[in-house]
């Protein structure tokens, strides 16, 4: 299988290889690894500022040209299918397409029809490999994965970040549990007790709560969410002092976490943003020059 689509399709060795590549880029030791002369096309059909900027920067740092296809002004708005748009980008000579889309599994579907690799920048509720890799990179700067206790809190049902992170962390030897309101848990999912489980947590990943969940009848209010399921200043004190707090952003202050959390040294959200660029450099490089790095199995 070409491209970078899903952590669920990778084994621990492949995840570690990507992680060490990202580390190499961050340390500045990978100067010979570049994408000079290559073209990376971006197609984001869901709003995303930071992921898109981060991929753009990553491609530019590697020396690649960046083509940004804006959905509202592109032919997709005129009714062209995503598959036809992707084929057009391929025909224009793009070496890789980075896609963000609301449908789970869409990049895996498109890849069956394309020769050039696709990098999944988030597909529906399913996977978010680049967010996962930057989370791994951030964690790896403080912790070992084996035996690590990770709690992912919030809207697990609709979260591609939760799925990719849990998949990768479990493959690397960590223990991952989920918590949040029952209305936002996928089927067959056991809930970790909240806030009790915070006491033994090494890494807490907070997920963004979409305001529309209230309209869908899944939450009574964002303020109740904060009080009962958010990381309040009080709950923060239950976390071990050497623990890490992550969040894929953008943060809803006063919903997933209290303002005070952002000021706390355990909070690594800005480190995540910084690492995002290096993680995405690794993914773009692996996707385009992948044959020299590793083969992603079918």
């Amino acid at each position, binding site marked *: 299988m070409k491209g970078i689509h899903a952590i*669920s399709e990778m084994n621990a060795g492949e995840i570690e290889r990507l992680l060490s590549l990202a580390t190499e880029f961050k340390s500045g030791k990978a100067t010979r690894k570049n994408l000079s002369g290559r073209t990376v096309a971006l197609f984001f059909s869901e709003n995303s500022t930071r992921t898109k900027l981060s991929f753009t920067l990553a491609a530019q740092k590697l020396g690649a040209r960046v083509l940004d296809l804006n959905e509202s002004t592109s032919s997709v708005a005129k009714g062209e299918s995503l598959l036809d748009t992707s084929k057009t980008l391929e025909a224009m000579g793009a070496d890789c397409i980075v896609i963000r889309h609301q*449908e*789970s*599994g*869409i990049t*895996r*579907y*498109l890849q069956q029809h394309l020769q050039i690799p696709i990098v999944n920048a988030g597909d*529906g*509720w*399913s*996977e978010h490999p680049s967010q996962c890799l930057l989370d791994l990179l951030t964690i790896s700067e403080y912790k070992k994965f084996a035996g690590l206790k990770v709690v992912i809190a919030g809207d697990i049902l609709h*979260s*591609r970040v939760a*799925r990719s992170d849990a998949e990768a962390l479990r493959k690397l030897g960590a223990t991952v549990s989920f918590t949040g309101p029952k209305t936002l848990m*996928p*089927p*067959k*999912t056991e809930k970790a007790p909240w806030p009790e489980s915070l006491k033994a947590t090494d890494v807490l990943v907070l997920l963004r709560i979409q305001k529309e969940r209230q309209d869908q009848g899944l939450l009574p209010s964002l303020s109740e969410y904060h009080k009962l399921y958010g990381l309040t200043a009080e709950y923060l004190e239950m976390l071990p002092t050497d623990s890490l707090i992550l969040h894929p952003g953008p943060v809803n202050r006063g919903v997933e976490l209290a303002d005070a959390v952002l000021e706390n040294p355990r909070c690594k959200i800005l480190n995540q943003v910084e690492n995002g660029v290096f993680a995405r450099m690794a993914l773009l490089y692996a996707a385009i020059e992948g044959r020299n790095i590793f083969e992603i199995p079918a």
Partner: protein
Amino acid sequence: MKYLLKGGRVWSEGVGEVRDLCLEDGKVVAGFTESAADRVIDVSGKEIFPGFIDLHCHLREPGFSSKETVKTGTLAAAKGGFTTVLSMPNTQPVLDNTWEMENYLRYLEDNTVVRVLPVAPLTKGRAGKELADLGSLAKLGIKFASDDGNDITNVALMRSALAYATDHGYTVLSHAEELALADGYLHAGYLTRDQGIPGISSSSESIAVARNLLLAGEVGAKIHLCHLSAKESVALLKLAKELGIQASAEVTPHHLYFADTEIQAFDTSYKVNPPIREEEDRLALREALKAGLIGAIATDHAPHTEKEKGQSLAAAPFGISSIEIAASVVNTIFADPALIYQRLSKGPSQIIGESHELKPGELADVVVFDPEVSFTVNKEKWVSKGKNSPYFTKQLKGRVVLTFRGGQIVYEQ
């Protein structure tokens, strides 16, 4: 033509016994000498059943002939051993008035290979707003009614439809589905949890099963539950029978054969509604089928074009094409000819209220089944226009070798 089928095990009136079967002028007859036969066929080692009856099939005409036609669909049915099929009303236009239905009945005469019993819609255009002309349609001989995949949302209208249909002798076929809980693509379980796919919960079926059974009981309607998929629905059916509600049910080969842990999340050939559920559901369905609580196996043959099914998971339509190998799937699971007889011939004939035996004077609808032969399902040999089958490349045991419809051979391997 006089056919003599020699040496097979003939299933009729509840039992199978090895004997010769004679067919003459479209009927089963008491017997004639071998020399009097126009054709003698050695069927020793084979099982001979009354032709299979499919209570649930989509022939797609009028409106969707790129998916299937009456001709290709009934040729596939004949290959599968089916001599009678009920065709569902999700056509374009919907045959909700006598003029359209009469046209369709004439079209059937010229195009069908097996007997087709059209199912009338319960409401005009299957829109769930106004009752269809059920009384007039009944005068054309239509005996079954259903809004198929559009279960009537308005509960008062559903009760009214059941009552009105009952007045005109219909059996109502119920595709039970609470749409508000069915906003997904696959069964809400391990697969949707792990892959992040919107799921269709079992309750989306069982809640509507309970509702429709209770309404049928209240107005005294005969209700037949289509393609049951969830163990809770099975339990509710049992309860309804205990309450004296006139209920029957069917299950599809794919809900008996597959469980969600065995399927590929993003392979659209498994995308079907109701979805393939869990091991526990499959077990409950198999047990209910064996016990006779579920009286029939019906295919829900739902052909689509390769272009439609070649879309992404969200865009591809629901449905599995399977009518031509249904009996093979059942035999592969159960290896029990008595069960095939009971659930593909006898059970469905009782549900539609017809006698269906291989005794003198009955119509010569006959299927000859070889229970021992193994084969790999081959797309190249597929007769239906709908190539959307998750069975391709699967190894199955047992197949139909010969089908008679009214004494004429409509399929011979």
